Each structure stands twice: as structure tokens, then as C-alpha cells.
């Protein structure tokens, strides 16, 4: 085994992947596979954590106790998702705190959607429906990822996500059956979130050069455009039931392809937001940094207490 050269190891690795054998933490893997996963899983973790901010902002302002309890449970789930993902990134030998520091320094990215503000209560329902809906589309595909710990984490996450989407949709059903003002508020949220939700699937296939390698390694199972199309196809009928209009004059059913056609995406906006110029980028990172700094004394106190207790035990 030790005398095996790199080419042979890589060949065997790809054979395992082709045979749908999962890769586990201590198995040999190409450096680039490890790096790709560390980047992807840590960015996924950051998205879960940053994603708590726009919704967390509405917990104290939820319109009733039921909605408040639901929102609290959802946001708590997102914290859990972040934690499952940070622990799976650690299985690849990454330093958890270093990946978090990369988020804080701006080196690591997270889903661009969370750089948009949640300005009305209808945004909360819309986030659950569209943003969690788009995330589910992505995450269901990741349940079959070739890296075992990531795939297993995704299975657990997907089980929890479906309530996120349903509670959002239910909240919108209520608004859409409410007063004209409530309906208008729902439509306004839809108008602002539709395009950013479609951007969540990432650049179109001809603009994402790393996709082919990720597909070959079965980190990814479907291309960005395929997932985006599935999302549009699933979501349009749901919007119709709500009586909401999708803000795209070119959206129409295509009999020949069996899919909905839609307008080209404004990639300029996407890249602006990814590169730090979205409406809330600075605010989000500031909030995360503050959380770490202001929580540091708790970490230190817990460490000191644990040290003191173990001293007593050995004394």
C-alpha cells in the first residue's frame, strides 16, 4: 500500500466513486477532493448560521404565540444544521474555528440569499417557502454525495427541512387569504425574493468551471441549472395556489420541454452580492463577529470550570 503511487491511488479512488462506495474520513482521498469538500461543507455551515439572522430578527415580532414558537424552532434547527456541518468538516481535518474565522475575515463565502433583509412579516413566510424550498432542492441531491459524513448529515437535515418549507407556505396561505393589505405584503415579498432564490443554485452551468470535477467525484449529482429548473417547475404551481404572481413576464409553460421557461438571471446582481456588496453583507458579518467576541467569556469560563473540576477529581 505504501509503495503505491499517486496515480494508482487516484485510479482506485475513482473506481470506488464509480461503484457508489462512500468515502469515509480516514480513507485515502485526493487533496483536491478534500479541499473542495472543506470549502463546500464549511460554506454550507456558514450559510446555516448566517441564515438564522434575518429570521431571528422576527422572533420577538411574530404575530402570535404559535408563529413565534414555530419560528423559534426553525431558527434553532438552522443552528443544529450548522453544527452538524461544522462537525462533518472537522472529519476532513479542517480546524473548525479557522473555518469560522475565514467567514469573519470575508475569505469564506456563504449563500448570497442571506444578504437580503427580511423587512416585513411576509418575508418570513416567503423565506420558509422559497429559500428553504431552494435549499431542500440542493440538499436532497447532496444526500447521495460520495463523502459519507456529509451525506449522512444531509439526510438528517432534509428530514428537518420539510417543516421549514411547510410552515412558511402555511403562513403565506394565511396572508393570501387575509386582507388586501396582507395579500399585497405577500406579493411584495415574492417580488423581492423570487430572483435571489433562483440565484441560490449558483452560476449557470457554462459559468461554473469546477462543476464537472464535482460531478465526476459525485460530490454533486445535478448541475446548478438542472436544480434551478426543478425548483421553478415545483414552485410555479404552488404560487398559483397562493394567487401570487411570479415577477417574470417571460415565465411560461413550455409544452415541448415539459418545463417552465423563465427570463435570464441578473448575474451582475448575483456577483455584486457574492462579492460583498449586497444590502446586508456587512451587517451579517458584524453580527457573527460580535457573537464570537461577546461569547468568548462563556467559552473561557466553561473551559476554566472544566479544568477546575478535573483537578478536584484527581486531587
Amino acid at each position, binding site marked *: *500500500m505504501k509503495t503505491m503511487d499517486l496515480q494508482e491511488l487516484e485510479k482506485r479512488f475513482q473506481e470506488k466513486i464509480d461503484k457508489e462506495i462512500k468515502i*469515509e474520513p*480516514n*480513507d*485515502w482521498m485526493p487533496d483536491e477532493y478534500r479541499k473542495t469538500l472543506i470549502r463546500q461543507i464549511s460554506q454550507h455551515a456558514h450559510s446555516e448560521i448566517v441564515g438564522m439572522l434575518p429570521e431571528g430578527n422576527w422572533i420577538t415580532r411574530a404575530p402570535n404565540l404559535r408563529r413565534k414558537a414555530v419560528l423559534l*424552532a426553525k431558527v*434553532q*434547527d438552522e443552528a*443544529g444544521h450548522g*453544527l*452538524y456541518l461544522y*462537525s*462533518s468538516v*472537522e*472529519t476532513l481535518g479542517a*480546524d*473548525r*474555528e*479557522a473555518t469560522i*474565522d475565514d467567514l469573519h475575515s470575508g475569505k469564506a463565502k456563504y449563500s448570497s440569499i442571506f444578504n437580503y433583509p427580511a423587512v416585513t412579516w411576509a418575508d418570513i413566510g416567503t423565506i420558509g417557502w422559497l429559500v428553504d424550498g431552494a435549499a431542500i432542492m440542493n440538499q436532497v441531491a447532496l444526500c447521495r454525495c460520495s463523502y459519507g*459524513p456529509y451525506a*449522512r*448529515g444531509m439526510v438528517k437535515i432534509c428530514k*428537518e427541512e420539510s417543516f421549514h418549507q411547510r410552515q412558511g407556505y402555511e403562513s403565506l396561505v394565511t396572508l393570501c387569504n387575509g386582507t388586501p393589505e396582507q395579500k399585497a405584503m405577500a406579493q411584495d415579498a415574492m417580488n423581492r425574493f423570487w430572483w435571489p432564490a433562483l440565484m441560490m443554485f449558483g452560476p449557470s452551468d457554462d459559468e461554473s468551471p469546477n462543476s464537472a470535477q464535482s460531478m465526476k467525484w459525485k460530490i454533486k449529482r445535478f448541475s446548478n441549472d438542472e436544480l434551478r429548473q426543478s425548483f421553478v417547475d415545483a414552485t410555479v404551481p404552488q404560487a398559483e395556489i397562493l394567487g401570487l404572481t411570479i415577477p417574470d413576464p417571460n415565465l411560461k409553460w413550455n409544452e415541448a420541454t415539459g418545463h417552465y421557461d423563465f427570463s435570464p438571471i441578473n448575474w451582475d446582481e448575483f456577483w455584486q452580492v457574492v462579492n460583498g456588496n449586497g444590502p446586508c453583507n456587512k451587517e451579517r458579518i458584524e453580527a457573527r463577529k460580535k457573537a464570537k467576541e461577546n461569547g468568548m467569556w462563556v*467559552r*473561557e469560563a*466553561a*473551559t476554566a*470550570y*472544566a479544568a477546575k*473540576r*478535573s483537578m478536584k477529581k484527581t486531587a
Partner: protein
Amino acid sequence: MSNKEWPLWEVFIRSKQGLNHKHVGSLRAADATLALENARDVYTRRSEGISIWVVESNYIHASDPSDADSFFEPSDTKVYRHPTFYEVPDGVKHM
């Protein structure tokens, strides 16, 4: 930074009485008490368990996957350990 970091714990959960504890993932915590509480909050928000074990990851020793072929060879080569290896005459019942 890493000297301030809490140790890593592996989490095992018994989902219901009569089943064994199963590995579900890991987390960081300052000590065992906090590791158990964190494990409850992170891994059992929907009644996934009735009992949790946490073990500091440092104390886990694992077999080496690159030696798996030779390490597990003794069991792979002994087909006679399986009941299907043996032939019994037709008509023999309860065996």
C-alpha cells in the same frame, strides 16, 4: 486559538429501549456534562433518543482503512463460518 478550543466528543444515541447506541456525529464541549447537554440539543430535537453516550474523540482508536484487506482477511476466507456452507439432506426440518 486552538488551546482555547473545547475538546471534540463523539456522540452515540440509543433511539429506543432494546436497541444499541449508534454513532450520530460529533460536537465540541468543555466537559462531559456540557457535551451531554449539547448532544441533547443538537442531535435529539425530535425525540431521536432516550439515552446518549459521549466519548472524547481522543480516546477512540480506529482500524486503518488502508490495511482493511489484510486486517479483515481472516473472516473473509472462512466461508465455513456461515450456515449456507453446509448441505443437509432434503426433508430435514427446523435446521
